[in-house]
């Protein structure tokens, strides 16, 4: 009896290997007091190596682990976006109460674990890796949301996310089981073949219920209405660096699998699910934008805005074309820049104002701290889709893809949603520039009444940092992100190429 050792493509697996190694190093480093405080640096190093591996494998187009994973343009680009946002989260978390209270390495280890889940998810081409990646992404996130141990909202948000997230995962798993029943396969390509080979399987209710449940499960993850109810609460309660990571990286990874599963495995069924996804996208756009109008908390507002933005991006999948995928990836990349800038400013203002994320903390910032007001202004204008920002080009790209594949009504929905969204994005801009400051010295003034309720601890929060607007590790991501939002609005071609690289990976399956 002979036994052939499996060939292992180490080059293809290098991003996953690098990240796993990094995770182990971070956990082990915590044991040694002398190097414990270098945790963030270690994490950034691990992400940098991972990003390096991803760029090294830029042109890869290979099946890995017997076809359970696939490293291609889509996986590389979206993993890269997730890695970048994780690095930003590490920087924004330096000195954050959540990071310290959770124990330094725990926080970073959880974040890295979640990122590993995202990288796997972006490459998954089988139901097994799909589900493993998704759970590896989600479970550390549940814990991360609750890491601000002294704030009730943080604990509440962790629990809420755990419960809702688990419902989503369970629904998804049911759906996967049904699709397995209908197709008899777990690999994405095999599912597509199985569904086409089976007699009448494409319109069988078993298949369709399965597809619906998978869509619902994924909709929970990317916060598509009506499965978005957790989003504002969790976004608001979670420590802001975690919220930023959740808002950006989770969307990148979840949309990667959304694209791959629906366009590859369920590609033959496109005529069945496109209307369903279009309805979800339209509903998301309306619910997210209308919901955001009434918010006074910045994080809640960004949560609702995330729901609406997810709706825009989902429209890219509805088209079931490469152009749609390109547009989605372009929009995601722009979305990373805009949200990093916005959440970064929220982090800085939170630390200065005693952890209040109310819009009123921004009053008069345009006059007193233009260095903070400009990035947030750019982020808001970009989210609202005004030129000359990447947000405008992103919307343009999406609308072009939609009109090109006869989904003009959905393009009009995006336009209408954008109009509604002006109401709240511009309220932030108006607060920054057009209303006088409440206090003469916002730096020194800490309104104790506005402090969130604390379960235990001293009267004055030791994490309040009036100098937060001078910390390089907080300012650098914000300034780079807002500069990128403008740069790619004026010279979008590099980002268009990146998006095309992602879309080309699906050229076998999608027109």
């Amino acid at each position, binding site marked *: 009896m002979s036994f052939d050792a499996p060939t292992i493509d180490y080059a293809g697996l290098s991003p996953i290997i690098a990240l796993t190694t990094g995770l182990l190093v971070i956990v082990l480093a915590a044991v040694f007091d002398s190097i414990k405080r270098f945790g963030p640096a270690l994490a950034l190093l691990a992400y940098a190596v991972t990003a390096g591996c991803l760029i090294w494998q830029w042109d890869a187009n290979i099946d890995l682990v017997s076809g359970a994973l696939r490293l291609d343009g889509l996986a590389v680009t979206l993993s890269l976006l997730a890695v970048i946002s994780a690095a930003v989260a590490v920087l924004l978390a330096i000195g954050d109460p959540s990071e310290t209270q959770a124990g330094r390495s725990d926080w970073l280890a959880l974040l890295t674990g979640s990122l590993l889940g995202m990288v796997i998810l972006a490459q998954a081409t089988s139901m097994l890796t799909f589900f493993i990646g998704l759970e590896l992404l989600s479970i550390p996130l549940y814990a991360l949301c609750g890491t601000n141990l002294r704030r009730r909202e943080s604990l509440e948000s962790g629990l809420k996310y755990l419960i809702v997230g688990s419902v989503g995962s369970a629904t998804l798993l049911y759906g996967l089981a049904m699709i397995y029943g209908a197709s008899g396969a777990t690999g994405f390509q095999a599912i597509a073949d199985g569904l086409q080979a089976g007699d009448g399987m494409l319109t069988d209710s078993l298949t369709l219920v399965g597809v619906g449940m998978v869509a619902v499960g994924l909709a929970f993850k990317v916060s598509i209405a009506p499965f978005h109810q957790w989003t504002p609460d969790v976004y608001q309660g979670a420590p802001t660096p975690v919220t930023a990571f959740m808002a950006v990286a989770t969307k990148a990874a979840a949309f990667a699998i959304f694209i791959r599963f629906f366009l590859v495995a369920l590609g033959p069924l496109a005529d069945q699910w496109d209307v369903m996804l279009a309805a979800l996208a339209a509903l998301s756009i309306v619910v997210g934008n209308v919901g955001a109008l009434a918010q006074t908390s910045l994080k809640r507002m960004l949560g609702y805005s995330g729901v609406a933005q997810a709706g825009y991006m989902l429209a890219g999948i509805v088209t079931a074309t490469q152009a749609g995928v390109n547009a989605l990836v372009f929009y995601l990349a722009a979305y990373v820049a805009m949200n990093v800038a916005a959440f970064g400013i929220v982090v800085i203002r939170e630390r200065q104002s005693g952890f209040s994320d109310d819009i009123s903390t921004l009053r008069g910032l345009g006059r007193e701290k233009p260095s903070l007001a400009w990035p947030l202004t750019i982020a808001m204008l970009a989210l609202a889709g005004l030129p000359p920002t990447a947000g405008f080009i992103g919307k*343009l*790209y999406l609308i072009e893809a939609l009109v090109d594949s006869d989904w003009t009504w959905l393009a009009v929905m995006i336009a209408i949603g954008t109009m509604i969204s002006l109401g709240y994005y511009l309220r932030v801009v108006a607060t920054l520039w057009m209303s006088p400051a409440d206090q003469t010295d916002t730096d020194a003034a800490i309104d104790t009444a506005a402090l969130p309720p604390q379960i235990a601890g001293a009267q004055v929060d030791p994490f309040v940092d009036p100098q937060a607007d001078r910390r390089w590790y907080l300012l650098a991501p914000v300034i780079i992100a807002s500069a990128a939002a403008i740069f790619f609005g004026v010279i979008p*071609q590099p980002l268009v190429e990146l998006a095309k690289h992602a879309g080309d990976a699906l050229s076998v399956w999608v027109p």
Partner: protein
Amino acid sequence: MLSSIIWAPLVFGLIGLLVPKRLTPWVAALGAVVTLGLSIGVLAGFDPDGGMQYVTDVSWIPGLGVDYSLGIDGVSIFLVLLTTIAWIPAIGFSALRGTERPALFYLMLLAGETSTLGAFLAQDLLLFVLFFDLMIVPFYFLFGIWGRDRGGEDDPEKSPGNGKVTVQSATLKMIVFTLIGSLLMLVGAIAAAVISADGGELTFSIQTIVARGLPAGSQNWIFWFFAAAFLVKMPAFPLHGWMPDSYRAAPLPALAVFSAVLSKVGAYGFLRVVLPMMPEASDLFQTTMLVLAICSIVYGSAMAFTKTDLRLVLGFSSVAQLGFITAGIFAFNGSGAEGAVLQMVNHGLVVVPAFLIVALIAERTGSEELGPMGGLAKKAPVFAVIFLIVTMATLAIPASGNFIGEFFILNGLFQVDAAWAIVASVGVALAAFYALRMYQLTMHNPLPEGSDTREISLRDALVVIPMVAIVVVLAFCPQLIIHGSEPAVDSAVAVVKEVAQ
């Protein structure tokens, strides 16, 4: 060449950020003058019969088929000139008075000029939409940061006729209204390109789309997506809802260029994009558009007659004037469209000094309300004469440029149907009412006790008088514009004319 016209203002605005605050206004003024010089240079080499000239065509986003494509023809050249002229007094007027945070103010003002010039010069449909959207951003900041709340409890000008306006609500209303139009236009523009390409190579070049043509069925809805954007921008009845509040809240120098130039981009859009690209739909909706235009004329005139806030008098008179311009364009003949172009320039040139005069009056009487004013003419004759010229131009007295413009438009309408011309001429009569009322109540009438009646200062006169002089010159030789724009305008309406017959 055209690129340098577009970007020169922005460059000077950015330089203004770097120089000491004291110098910023003068750097900005220099920028505006340089831009005017460049546009005069273009005019010098311009051939009215040469079609599209000074063409620049560089691929900008090849992945999406968007080009950085510029060009100038007989329609746009006069609007470019109007823009570059109008910005100079606005900047000069602010420079003489000083503003808070000057670097940001002039940067925004000049960014506004850049984007407006971009909209007039863009020959790529998406580039046009982009500049069209971009225009509103600097003005949002200008109105929002340097505007002021009006009609509140502590406002001395509080009057029963005018409600309370806060800067925040006014600017929000303005930008939402404007973008409702322009987002639909974005969808319309993309749809026009995709449908006309019909599976071929996607391009947003306006000329290519016009050459390829659009099926009549698609034209009908794309027409309204574009029309919504343009009618809001003008503003035209019934989409003028944002106008009163933002006009009242805005800082006057910025409002002067806003009212003079940005409103014209809407009318220009009809000539440049809608008529050539959607001739069947334009013909189909001709009656609707003419009805809207007539409503704008009558409603605008009536409102201008009843309002007591000087800004609103001018604002609603603009609604009426833009109504005339729209009517001229939708007459689909050379006379109407040439009159429309002439009237665009005339109105722009008249409105800038008019708003600056409002600012001067407010400095003297402490109010922009017509009620407590009067009698300025006795003590300040030069000021009164300047205002008289502006008033006469507004009411289109024979021998004024506006008279000729309106005559051409009415002549064009008459060729469509005498009824249109008769109804529209009511507007001409109404203009005399509101313009003379405005002049009488500010300049004649008894002088209120203790009011300040300074003569116009030499420095202010230097800013305002050149504009008035241009108005006078244009009154005597309107053929400069009529001849220069004729070939381009005729070709714009020719397509529709053909369809209509």
